[in-house]
């Protein structure tokens, strides 16, 4: 069986004679090419982002896109007079996508060749193929999660957030308070896990424990009374961040064992890891339990190790660890330990969470 093609995560559009018929500078009332509106809406619903690389006057082109009712679909539009390969790679970088996850559509063979030369991993399509794009396997993700459909909304909220942060001149913590952040932790159901699957598939995720649990394994534990599978969502006044974390916790009398903690990179800057751990420590303290956490160093989870250590986890031995089914020693997994004591609520966000001890 052939390998599944790498999915396209962002489609970059040329404007003149591709997205619309004609050249804007010659015809100020250009109309959309056939099928463009449907294709954009369909791919957007599949969680594929849209962007623009066009040699045009920015204000004119953007005004026209607004008039056509399409402007809201595009993230990081590159409209100017530079090289298209630069524009496409800039978009990939801003989105933190590999060039192989970017597609480019343009009516001019020379532009496609230029992009192809400088960025060979970017897939290029001629304008005649617009209507065919939704039928191609690389534009057809097998599972469309709730979050995939809201991805554009989240990216755009992210841009507005970044713009405000750049203009904000004060301590980070003070800035965070202006965002009206809300974190919601809840016992997961099957739909929540579909959202988390997206999180664990994405390359940008940070798995704090460094230990992988498959979607099937997590679903299998939903009904297990000894285990709690929890998901974390965040939102702020700009919009949702979506599902940003997942935890797997085994609760025994006197000892709670954190087996999995994965959070999205999107929320690292908000201190989400520390807030989650602090909440967990407080919950364990209420249940008179110590906490143990599996941790395996990877080249990407250092920030989470710091979060664990600053939350108070150590390498110290404790009698509570005896008989715990940890993965210690296997594949470099350590078991960090903490004698839980009550913790104050976070000062940078509102936290909606269940009582773990009560269930």
């Amino acid at each position, binding site marked *: 069986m052939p390998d599944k093609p790498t999915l396209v995560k962002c489609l970059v559009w040329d404007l003149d004679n591709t997205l619309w018929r004609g050249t804007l500078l010659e015809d100020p009332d250009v109309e959309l090419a056939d099928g463009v509106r449907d294709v954009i809406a369909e791919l957007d619903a599949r969680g594929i982002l849209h962007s623009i690389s066009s040699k045009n006057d920015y204000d004119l082109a953007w005004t026209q896109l607004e008039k056509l009712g399409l402007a809201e679909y595009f993230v990081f539009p590159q409209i100017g007079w530079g090289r298209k390969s630069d524009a496409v790679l800039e978009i990939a970088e801003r989105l933190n996508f590999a060039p192989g996850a970017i597609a480019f559509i343009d009516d001019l063979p020379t532009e496609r060749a230029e992009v192809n030369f400088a960025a060979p991993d970017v897939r290029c399509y001629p304008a005649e193929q617009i209507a065919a794009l939704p039928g191609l396997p690389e534009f057809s993700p097998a599972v469309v999660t709730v979050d995939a459909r809201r991805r554009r909304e989240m990216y755009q909220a992210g841009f507005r957030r970044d713009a405000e942060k750049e203009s904000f001149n*004060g*301590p*980070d*913590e003070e800035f*965070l308070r202006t965002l009206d952040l809300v974190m919601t932790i809840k016992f997961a159901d099957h739909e929540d896990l579909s959202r988390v699957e997206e999180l664990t598939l994405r390359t940008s995720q940070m798995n704090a424990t460094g230990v992988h649990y498959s979607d099937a394994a997590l679903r299998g534990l939903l009904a297990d009374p000894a285990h709690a599978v929890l998901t974390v969502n965040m939102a702020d006044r700009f919009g949702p961040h979506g599902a940003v974390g997942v935890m797997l916790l085994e609760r025994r009398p006197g000892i709670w064992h954190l087996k999995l903690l994965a959070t999205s990179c999107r929320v*690292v*800057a*908000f*201190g989400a890891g*520390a807030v989650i751990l*602090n909440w967990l420590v407080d919950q364990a303290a209420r249940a008179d339990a110590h906490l143990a956490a599996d941790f395996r160093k990877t080249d990407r989870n250092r*920030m989470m*190790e*710091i*979060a664990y*250590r*600053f*939350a*108070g986890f*150590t*390498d110290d031995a404790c009698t509570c660890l005896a008989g715990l089914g940890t993965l210690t020693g296997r594949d470099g997994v350590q078991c960090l330990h903490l004698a839980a004591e009550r913790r104050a609520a976070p*000062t*940078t966000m509102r936290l909606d969470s269940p009582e773990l001890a009560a269930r």
Partner: protein
Amino acid sequence: MTAEQAAEAAPISAQAVEEALLAFLAERIKTSVAVDQDLFGSGLVSSMFAMQLVVHLEEAYDIAIIGPELKLDNFRTVQAMTALVLRLSAARDG
């Protein structure tokens, strides 16, 4: 003198590290602190900022702060961070 320059002058002095740290903190949290002030207890810096502190100290003084050394008490005051920097630098050079 910046922290980077301080790192080049060997051996580094406690005073130089303290001064560089105070300047760094004044710039980042927009307020001046005392060397023995509890940065976390007073709510001045978030745990997220603490992570930035770790990375800053490692880069400025060419040290690796790992495992048990990452405990919060090592970062609670300017004095504690200075002691940590001196100890890890000495261990590296020794």
